[in-house]
């Protein structure tokens, strides 16, 4: 007979299984977050010992900071374009490498490899490609061109291209898992009922792997919102500060302009916006999920 557990027993069980994780989560996420929230009410310069309390002044300053809103708007455009391209390409690649082609594993590994290179190194490699290699090749074949990174539009698309190149392989992996997770019974049943390949994909596979889409969209949206390393090493916000994405804007405010309080406030605003978008997307995705 199972007896009802007392609170003490429950607590002990909880601490035994989830204690270490809870501790780590508190120490590296919750406490810094609360401390950060506290800093938004100060005019701390990031280095001095004094943290003067200023109330809501930072929030008012953020509302008026056009540079920040400009970079946030840029980040949203960057995010939307990148998310669409990354997921579209990743899904195509996944279809490709789960289909009937030779050397599937080779292609899977190949597409995934860019994701193994860290953002900073990736940025420097592509900077060379855009600044030197591409210009050289174009000039050799007789097209007079300048570096993509020297123009505002070019630098923005350079960011998008590298992001797509970096994340497509990773998302492809998740889509492959989704595609191969669909039970063959259902596919066979569909075939017996006379489905074409296209219909199988559209009406059986896609609905059953909505979960993969939810995950991939969530990952790409949050990563694009928070991107910093690639931004720093590829364009460093240039030319003329036109590709300063939100995270970089926050960093510059906090450390370069030495207005840590206001920088922290911008970080909180960025967090709230990201959270709203990501949670809304996850909710919408969940409601579309079906089970066989």
């Amino acid at each position, binding site marked *: 007979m199972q007896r009802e557990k007392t609170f003490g027993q429950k607590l002990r069980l909880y601490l035994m299984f989830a204690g270490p994780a809870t501790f780590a989560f508190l120490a590296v996420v919750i406490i810094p977050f609360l401390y950060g929230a506290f800093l938004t009410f100060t005019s701390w310069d990031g*280095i*001095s010992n004094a943290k003067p309390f200023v109330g809501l002044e930072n929030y008012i300053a953020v509302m008026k900071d056009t540079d920040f809103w400009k970079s946030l708007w840029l980040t949203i455009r960057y995010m939307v374009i990148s998310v669409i391209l990354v997921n579209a390409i990743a899904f195509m690649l996944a279809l490709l490498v789960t289909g009937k082609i030779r050397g599937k594993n080779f292609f899977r590994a190949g597409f995934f490899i860019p994701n193994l290179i860290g953002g900073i190194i990736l940025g420097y490699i592509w900077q060379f490609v855009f600044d030197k290699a591409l210009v050289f090749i174009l000039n050799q074949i007789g097209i007079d061109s300048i*570096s993509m*990174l*020297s123009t505002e539009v070019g630098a923005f698309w350079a960011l998008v291209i590298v992001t797509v190149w970096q994340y497509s392989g990773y998302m492809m992996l998740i889509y492959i898992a989704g595609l191969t997770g669909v039970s063959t019974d259902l596919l066979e049943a569909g075939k017996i009922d006379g489905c074409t390949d296209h219909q199988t994909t559209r009406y059986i596979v896609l609905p059953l792997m909505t979960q993969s889409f939810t995950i991939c969209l969530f990952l790409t949206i949050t990563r694009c919102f928070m991107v910093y390393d690639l931004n720093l090493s590829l364009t460093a916000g*240039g*030319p*003329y500060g036109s590709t300063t994405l939100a995270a970089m804007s926050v960093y510059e405010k906090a450390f*370069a302009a*030495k207005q840590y309080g206001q920088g922290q406030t911008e970080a909180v605003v960025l967090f709230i916006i990201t959270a709203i978008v990501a949670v809304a997307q996850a909710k919408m995705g969940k409601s579309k999920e079906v089970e066989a």
Partner: protein
Amino acid sequence: MKRKMVSVLLTAVMAASVLAGCGNSESADTAATDAKSADSAAVAESTSAEAAETANTAATQAAGGSYSYAAGSYDGVKITMLNTKSEIQDQLEAAAEKWGELTGATLDVYTISSDAESPAEEIATKYAAGDAPTLIMGDPQDVYSICKEKGVDLSDQPWVSVGGSQYGITNNDKVYSFPFCIEGRGLIYNASAIEKVTGTAFDPSTIKSMDDFTALLDKLVAGGMQYPISVNCEDWSLAGHYMTQVYEMQNGATSLSNDLIDQLYAGTADLNSNPVFTEMFDTFDVLKKYNINQKDPMSADRDESGTDLAEGTIAFWFDGCWAWDTMQDSYDNSSNIGIMPIPVNDTTGNANIGSYICGSPTKQVMIDKEDSDEKQQAAAKDFLNWLVFSQDGQNVLVNECSLVPAFTNITAEATNPLAKSVQQYSAAGKLFPGYINYPSDHWQKVGAIMQQYLAGKIDRAEFAKEVQAYWSALKK
């Protein structure tokens, strides 16, 4: 105001207690300072015969100075140093090892990539982490803004009397930093390359105005050097070095005047009608016109520019003596390379404009007192003394790192043509100082605006307006 006073007092008391603590420890530098004139005491302090020898040679080296370096004993003391001159990282690491063998301490030198981060960001990050390096090399404004709260008072150090008080950062008559080197910026020229094209000898002092300069450039173009100039696209070079001269030359390039900066803060300045701004940017337009990167000014590459100048592909490049790092591999020892003032058509009537270059101690080393204990602070002081007063240390500064030292007791001649050039201006008293209290994101924000001007996206009136907007939006 009252609270400020209290904090000043507190800081003073803290600084005093730290110093008192130092006095009690067995640190050699305090002992050596006490025994300023007694060479024998300094030798007695040394722990090994080798150290004694070094101290002796240093004593004879330090002509005029009454201090001689004696290595202290800091067995097991570990200190770190933030080096923000990444081009001398290897040399400093070697120096740290040498000094470590002498004193038993371990000095770990690390550096940051200057493209990605500013020293201010790195320092703030380290303090936020509670892990500040003991020796902090920063730009003057970084050190100035934190020295009172975080820095050890270095007024009692022996190097203060040989240049430290003149070039170090002082606050309330206390010296807080060690001037690591004197650096000059200006137009770097390759005289040999110019002579090869024009056929006549080139003397930079004959270029007295922008008109002289343009005439020479036209001659170079006619002689086959299609683009004689390279202009950097880096924000720190544009706004941190070129634009800043507009503020610094307001008073005829000799003494600093804050009038323009005060007006900019207040939002009352009219940059575009300021004579120094106008003449500096007339010249900047000339630089743009003959720029080798003019097709795509934003893709200029400093390493390429340095190579081009050393090899004589171009004749002029606006940068500073630190640019030697980009040229040394392609420099063949035969070309006559140096730094000259930016030639302008002066309307302010000041004779100094056009013969002075901007030169000042651009890197300052302070000792942290917040995250470093007394032993570490004493060891850090020992290292700085070693650099100034021991032969090995001087060798590191002058020969290994090719710097122009800020100390009068170091008489060795600089080793590369650019540093030599700066040394000559310094000896002739023709250096004007940089301003140290710019807003810390000035180079970044104004740099972005100036990049637009360089790329021809905005005209000069718009540029002036945006710079004014940047300043007036600041909270003073």
